[in-house]
């Protein structure tokens, strides 16, 4: 059997085993919570009774996946060179509020308005990530520690800004605080036409977020950058072996700064699908925690854009089931358990299968060396 095929089969088997195990563990948890695992898994795949409900369900899943995908990308860029950017959480929140506020300060034709908002978000996210990068390069501060600390600063700073300097007019009797509403030229057009093309009703709420297109382009861009450019190669080289990279002329300081800033700039975009596509402001209901989820998504997707996309869709698929599970009288915390076990088991399975494949390869190479008489070289 060729080594590549063997490895592939092994990986498939590993992923299968991981998912079967995850289902088994979740079933135990569901039973322990006093619900029926069967009902739970039926609910996971139940997208609703009417066409509208199905469309709503699919939209919810994709809308959830879009920011998770961007978050996964942001984390993965750092991971690829062994930089643990735990600060994605803070970077996207501070970027989101700044972008949402700047977007209200002017009115321009829609493409320009949206572009400016995207650029501001990326710039703020990148600049905020520059702080831990400079600290690491200048004083050797571990980026894990500094980014975690900067998260707290960003979260509280964002909470202060939304209450104070950036606050908008609060509707009478409402307790939620938010930035002023964005002008209509900053509303990202939705993709409901995709459903209407097939004669399906348009989803409710904000519709299918048009930012999906930006996310896909971003994914392609990151893939090209990491796999097809010199910069991507240097990132990978620094990640695999920093001293070897240094020896071959890669400037590690420059790499830390550029990878961190790139990671932060991508992180800055995480909040935009929601702000531009649905809420049209940054408010107290802004979705938190996406930066941390991005770590799980990046791990599950093995730091590759395509893998991250699949992982994000899987998370979106599971998260969407919050409502249906409760309709089936299953506690929705089951979802968190499933997500956790899947990530853990897939990571473990990856490690086991790659070790098995490596051992087989070594054995094969050893046999090869033992049996083959070395070729004599004539001078």
């Amino acid at each position: 059997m060729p080594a590549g095929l063997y490895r592939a089969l092994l990986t498939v088997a590993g992923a299968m085993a991981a998912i079967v195990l995850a289902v088994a563990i979740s079933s135990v948890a569901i039973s322990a919570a006093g619900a029926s695992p069967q009902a739970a898994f039926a609910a996971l795949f139940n997208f609703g009774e009417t066409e509208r409900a199905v469309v709503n369900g699919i939209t919810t899943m994709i809308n959830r996946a879009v920011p998770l995908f961007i978050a996964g990308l942001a984390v993965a860029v750092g991971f690829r060179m062994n930089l643990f950017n735990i600060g994605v959480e803070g970077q996207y929140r501070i970027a989101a509020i700044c972008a949402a506020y700047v977007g209200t300060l002017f009115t321009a034709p829609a493409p320009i308005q949206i572009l400016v908002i995207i650029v501001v978000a990326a710039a703020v996210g990148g600049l905020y990530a520059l702080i831990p990068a400079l600290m690491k390069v200048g004083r050797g501060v571990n980026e894990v520690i500094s980014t975690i600390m900067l998260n707290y600063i960003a979260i509280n700073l964002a909470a202060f800004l939304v209450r104070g300097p950036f606050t908008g007019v609060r509707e009478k009797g409402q307790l939620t605080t938010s930035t002023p509403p964005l002008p209509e030229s900053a509303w990202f057009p939705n993709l409901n036409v995709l459903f209407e093309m097939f004669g399906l009703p348009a989803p409710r709420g904000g519709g299918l977020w048009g930012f999906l297109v930006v996310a896909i382009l971003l994914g392609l861009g990151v893939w090209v950058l990491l796999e097809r450019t010199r910069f991507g190669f240097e990132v990978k080289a620094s990640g695999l072996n920093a001293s070897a990279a240094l020896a071959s002329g890669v400037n590690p300081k420059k790499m830390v700064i550029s990878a961190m800033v790139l990671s932060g700039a991508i992180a800055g975009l995480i909040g935009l699908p929601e702000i531009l596509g649905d809420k049209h402001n940054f408010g107290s209901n802004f979705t938190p925690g996406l930066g941390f989820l991005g770590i799980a998504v990046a791990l599950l997707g093995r730091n590759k854009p395509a893998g991250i996309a699949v992982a994000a869709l899987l998370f979106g698929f599971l998260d969407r089931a919050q409502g249906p599970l409760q309709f089936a009288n299953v506690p929705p915390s089951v979802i968190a358990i499933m997500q956790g076990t899947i990530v853990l088991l897939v990571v473990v399975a990856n490690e086991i299968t790659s070790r098995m494949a490596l051992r087989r390869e070594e054995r094969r190479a050893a046999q090869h060396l033992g049996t083959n008489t070395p070729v004599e070289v004539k001078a």
Partner: protein
Amino acid sequence: MLSKRFGRMAVGTMAGAMLMAAAACGGGNTGGDTTSSAQPSAGTASDAPKAGALKVGLAFDIGGRGDKSFNDAAYAGLEKAKTELGAEIKELSPASDGSNRGELLRQLADAGYNPIIGVGFAYGEDIKKAAEEYTDVQFAVVDSASNASNVTGLLFAEEQGSYLAGVAAATKSKSGHVGFVGGVENDLIKKFEAGFVAGVKSVKADAKIDVKYLTPDGDFSGFKAPDKGKVAAEKMYQDGADIVYHASGDSGLGVFQAAAAAKKKAIGVDSDQRQTIKETDLQSVIMTSMLKRVDVGVFEYIKAFQGGAKGGSNVVYDLKVDGVGLATTGGEIDDIQDKLDAAKKDIVDGKITVPAKP
């Protein structure tokens, strides 16, 4: 390198297959289901069926059912509607990041529930959007004002109830030092603080009041962080406070644990927490609870809906209608009941105006 690529493909194929299966399931349902439910045809202006039986949907705030406090109070009202009005009920909890509030409302509306109640001010915007999409469904939102013609705002005068809690705390306190733990520093919880502080000062003008909020506005984790609640309350008890009032949802559990450890007292919130708390050893530390009768609000709203009431306005539950008040379980405030009744009367009569802002 090769193995990694294959691994990626493997995971991809797997998840892809799952997703496709999901789509297939959803698709299958749409075809065969037109007869079983009341929907005449999918895709009309509204998917909500005509009201035959009373189907009441309720979406909780973060923390969900089982918080022994705010959400559970709402559920009590819903359950009462089930037993007394024969309503079919369904209650949903949001994801822990609260990202799917609007989605829950739509899922309830799609499943034919009417009326639908959102518990918590965070539903304000989502209810408005859902109400505009489902114009023939009636909505209600607790703690937020009405903002559409089919939305009823269910409001409470928390500052008045908290004033009584302040009076009780100041009268019962031996050290003249009390504390307040707020879950999230927003205008709603500040109403509790304002009322409590005014109540304490009305009894002991020089009383020391520690105030601590667990998280800033916009970060709702303060409502479900018993660890933070415990730390905050521990500090107050160590500094000499002997009674701590909490308005922090789930985090209150930590306040009670701190009170039990310090052998001091605490005041619960929203529900009669001495009754609702599961940990029996913590019951005795809960001197009283500031009742916010969300159950009354929810039940009365459902009853009014049955009677044909429409939205577009607010209903305020204050001391006058016993929408707020103090719990007497345990009998620890029975001896000061006269004083509390007098304060209540003054508020109801308008002699005292309780501030809603600290």
